[in-house]
């Protein structure tokens, strides 16, 4: 069986890629799409790593600290996935974009809705029944400062508590068993435009939280709250003087451009760092060995780069911090003086891969600027950065200096429309998290194929109102008008292995299992199972609304493997439906409406949980 599969692969895929392959140094045609051996890429050890016994639970949105979204369950595999059926469904009653991952702890599933951020505890033994429901009642006004729909990206479980953030910038801890609020801490101020949409991560008794609001002139930060009491343990800003950024003597950035004192001040016009963005609304990973957390910071504000000369540190940066103190260990600014709203908030997949003949502990980041960065996670050295999408605005990354080379005529300015900037403002890939399978050695990247026209305009900072200063129009990138892509990327060979084109941006996360199945959803409402090695769509199911959530895989109380996904279109990309926007204005929703005018023909809004299993 396995032999025949290899032969098949050899013919079907290997043949296609042989011509451009640069990894088959051993001469074997079959080796191209497949890593040398599954053991070559090993996950880091850690509390939730795959190295441990797969317990079938899903305790944090990224599944583990390494953010690989890899489930060790293999009951559903590439062969039988075509038989998947709906096991049960559950309506959340909320109509906005559902970006969250459900959690599965024991025999309970926890679902966080978008604003008003209701937390449901669902009994898996009695599928769909609500054990309890927790309503934090966030301030309604927070809706007015949420840039891109009223989403929430999920909760985290630890120490018998569910932690999550509400739109009005509060972090709550809820007793997982009873649904009683344990503590509630205000972490930001909506009057200044701060909201929180990210999923927290719990590391060594601390809940790590970051703010959103890069489009509102907030000052980005990440803070650690005590898991027990919700008190702030440390708080690090992503701009401002070193003392605020928690940059101390241990700070050793790899590149010269990131070295220096108080760069968070000197790379900004006077006082601009106070309203300069650099938020943390994406993903945080944790390496227990080095005791470092890794996260990326968001875009600088405003979008119009003319308003903020300088590198604008530490926006659009990857930052490694000590998990206990928050002290910065290293930082690498991916996008100095960001020109296109290319936040650096994407997930860091912590993996070990061979690089130039030696195993290296790296973090793999499919970045918004369209490159997959492979960065040494101890030093911050960029080992490789290869494009995974169509690019016109940049010419590559100089690995010696860490500089991203820009194309001169694509640099935007005030009062001038610059056309055909690829990728567009949401980047080649936005927040939607990718997955990594140690079995295939591939990173599965859900992403967009969008380009844009961009015009900088005068931006006025009025606290609590948007601080963007740009007119944007997005449209499909090259091709047949497809706006989404799902790419399997080989981080070792630094190239795409297969790619699926989707009509709309793939705004949902991905999950990969030991059964070599990748799951993701599309905005026109299809939930898909894909053969992790070949990219063949094995199964798909049309759900009620477009999918922008994160699939999870768990073992039910009955011992069966289940796949769960929240549907409910929305988010930045789905704002045209979720917000009832007018397609005649292509600049609406920061320009995303321009690319999504036909979404209302394919999807309506409505939040619904779908759980699938084999019959």
């Amino acid at each position, binding site marked *: 069986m396995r032999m025949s599969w290899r032969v098949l692969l050899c013919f079907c895929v290997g043949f296609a890629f042989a011509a451009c392959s640069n990894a088959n140094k051993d001469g074997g045609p079959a080796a191209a799409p497949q890593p040398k051996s599954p053991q070559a890429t090993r996950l880091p050890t850690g509390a939730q790593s795959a190295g441990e016994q797969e317990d079938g639970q899903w305790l944090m949105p990224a599944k583990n600290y390494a953010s690989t979204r890899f489930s060790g369950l293999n009951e559903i595999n590439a062969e039988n996935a075509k038989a998947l059926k709906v096991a049960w469904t559950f309506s959340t009653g909320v109509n906005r974009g559902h970006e969250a991952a459900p959690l599965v702890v024991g025999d309970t599933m926890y679902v966080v809705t978008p604003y008003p951020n209701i937390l449901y505890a669902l009994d898996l033994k009695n599928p769909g029944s609500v054990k309890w429901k927790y309503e934090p009642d966030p301030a309604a006004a927070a809706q007015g400062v949420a840039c891109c729909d009223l989403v929430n990206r999920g909760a985290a479980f630890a120490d018998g508590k569910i932690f999550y953030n509400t739109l009005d910038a509060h972090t709550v801890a809820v007793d997982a068993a009873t649904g009683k609020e344990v503590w509630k801490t205000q972490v930001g101020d909506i009057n200044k435009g701060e909201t929180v949409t990210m999923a927290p991560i719990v590391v060594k008794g601390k809940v790590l939280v970051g703010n959103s609001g890069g489009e509102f002139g907030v000052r980005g930060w990440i803070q650690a709250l005590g898991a027990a009491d919700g008190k702030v343990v440390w708080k690090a800003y992503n701009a401002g003087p070193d003392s605020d950024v928690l940059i101390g003597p241990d700070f050793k950035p790899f590149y010269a451009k990131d070295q220096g004192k108080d760069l968070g001040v000197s790379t900004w016009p006077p006082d601009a760092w106070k309203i300069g963005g650099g938020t943390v609304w994406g993903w945080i990973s944790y390496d227990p060995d080095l005791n470092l957390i890794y996260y990326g910071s968001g875009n600088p504000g405003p979008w119009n780069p003319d308003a903020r000369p300088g590198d604008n540190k530490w926006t659009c940066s990857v930052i490694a911090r000590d998990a206990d103190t928050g002290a910065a260990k290293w930082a690498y600014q991916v996008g100095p003086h960001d020109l296109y709203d290319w936040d650096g908030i994407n997930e860091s997949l912590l993996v070990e891969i061979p690089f130039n003949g030696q195993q290296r502990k790296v973090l793999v980041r499919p970045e918004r600027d369209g490159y997959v960065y492979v960065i040494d996670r101890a030093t911050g050295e960029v080992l490789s950065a290869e494009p995974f999408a169509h690019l016109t605005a940049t010419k590559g990354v100089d690995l010696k200096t860490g500089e991203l080379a820009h194309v001169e005529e694509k640099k935007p300015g005030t009062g001038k429309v610059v056309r055909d900037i690829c990728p567009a403002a949401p980047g080649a890939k936005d927040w939607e998290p990718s997955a990594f399978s140690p079995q295939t050695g591939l990173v599965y990247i859900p992403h967009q194929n969008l380009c844009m026209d961009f015009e900088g305009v005068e931006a006025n900072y009025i606290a609590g109102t948007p601080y963007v200063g740009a007119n944007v129009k997005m449209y499909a990138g090259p091709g047949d008008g497809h706006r989404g892509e799902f790419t399997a990327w080989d981080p070792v060979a630094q190239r795409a292995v297969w790619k699926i084109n989707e009509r709309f941006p793939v705004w949902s996360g991905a999950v990969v299992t030991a059964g070599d199945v990748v799951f993701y959803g599309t905005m026109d409402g299809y939930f898909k199972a894909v053969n992790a090695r070949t990219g063949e769509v094995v199964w798909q199911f049309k759900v009620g609304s477009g999918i922008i959530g994160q699939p999870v895989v768990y073992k039910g109380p009955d011992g069966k493997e289940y796949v769960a996904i929240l549907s409910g279109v929305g988010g930045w990309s789905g704002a045209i439906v979720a917000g009832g926007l007018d397609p*005649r204005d292509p600049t609406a929703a*920061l320009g995303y409406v321009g690319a999504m005018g036909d979404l209302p023909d394919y999807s309506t809004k409505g939040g619904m949980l779908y759980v699938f299993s084999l019959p």
Partner: protein
Amino acid sequence: MRLARRLAIVFWAAAAALTSASCMREERGFRVSPPPSGRVQTVRLTDFQPGPAQPPEVTQNAYEENAYAVSEGKRLYEQMNCVGCHFHGGGGIGPALMDAHWIYGSDPSQIFSTIVQGRPNGMPSFRNKLNDDEVWKIAAYVRSLSGQVAKDVAPSRSDDMSGPPPESATEKKPPVKSGGIPKSAEMPK
């Protein structure tokens, strides 16, 4: 001769109408007192009422007759960051303003109140931050986004990226008074 006299009457009437209409359309009073706003603070947000129906309250915003005021409204709409949420009428963070749906009413005084008072689902209150005159100008412009303002008054395209058709080319649709619930935010509480 009768015909001539009639023609003369028609001519002078037309001339008078033209005069009054056009003088107002292009006047640039820099120190004008805005339409009375005292009553506006108690504006109704619904036509539904107990007892016999009262006629709907319809207010006039004199600025909707004045091209300069509407263009000032457009400038303020951009500079006061209305554009940040509603964009060029298509909406984003806030609802679309170029469609026929008006959550809190399409009447000038209702728009005025919405801007001044703010609305619970995210619309900030601009009380004390904009003076009445400016709000009336913005209100006039907001109505021009959906073609509620005469075409020779509504602004044309801006010297910016081309977006939706210019306000002066937007077809007028009678507003749908759905009232109260944001079209985009029907959600449980």
